[in-house]
């Protein structure tokens, strides 16, 4: 798993009161996929990112944009 952990996604999901399985079911993927996205082990397509954002009522910037250090 070479990617960066997506803590913002995890926080947004928990704030929405959803488990990984709930979010997975809502966006049409498996729980493992959500787990891997949060752990930085899978780079989702733009379509999936948008679907996740819509379900969590967030923008792409909120969940997936990384500011340069």
């Amino acid at each position, binding site marked *: 798993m070479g990617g960066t952990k997506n803590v913002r996604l995890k926080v947004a999901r928990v704030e929405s009161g959803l488990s990984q399985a709930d979010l997975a079911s809502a966006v*049409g993927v*498996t729980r493992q996929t959500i787990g891997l996205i949060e752990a930085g082990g*899978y780079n989702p*397509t733009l379509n999936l990112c948008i679907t996740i954002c819509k379900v969590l009522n967030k923008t792409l910037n909120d969940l997936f944009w990384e500011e340069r250090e």
Partner: protein
Amino acid sequence: MSIKEFVKRHQGMRDERIVAETNKIYKKGFLALTFGLLVFFTYDTMRSQVAFVNGLSDTVEVSLSLMILYAWLFVVVLACALASTLKGFVDDGRFAETDYFPAGYFALWSFCAALGSGFAVALLRALAEFELVGASGIMWAADAVLGFSFSILIFLACYANFYLAFRAAKRRRETLALRFED
């Protein structure tokens, strides 16, 4: 409702990660299967020739079922090459969609293919000789010459194929670009 739509509806949504992972697995499987079949066909051809040369067989025979398998492999590999050319690329590396033909890059690939296949042909020929006439019947020099000649042929065939496929893919890219232009 078409059969395709019916199956799709019953399958439900497909996880893009699983689809991607499955594709990767099947890609490796396809390459391994193709490699294995090529080794098998080469060995089978060498074995038939060695048997004929050493008077163990009157003819170099290839059964109909093997010919069908040969043809099927050829058609499948050609279809894959054509499909990628129609999409506008012949390679998935950094030269996939360049405007100029990357001569050195494709020369290197052709050389690797030629080297590998030349060695394989020589070794499989020697193995076939060992199987049919024993260690004393292995003609190392002749096998090496055969492998070398084959590698030159493969190099030229690969390079010409890369060049023609690159040109076709480039033309295809231009057509696609026109289609998607504003």
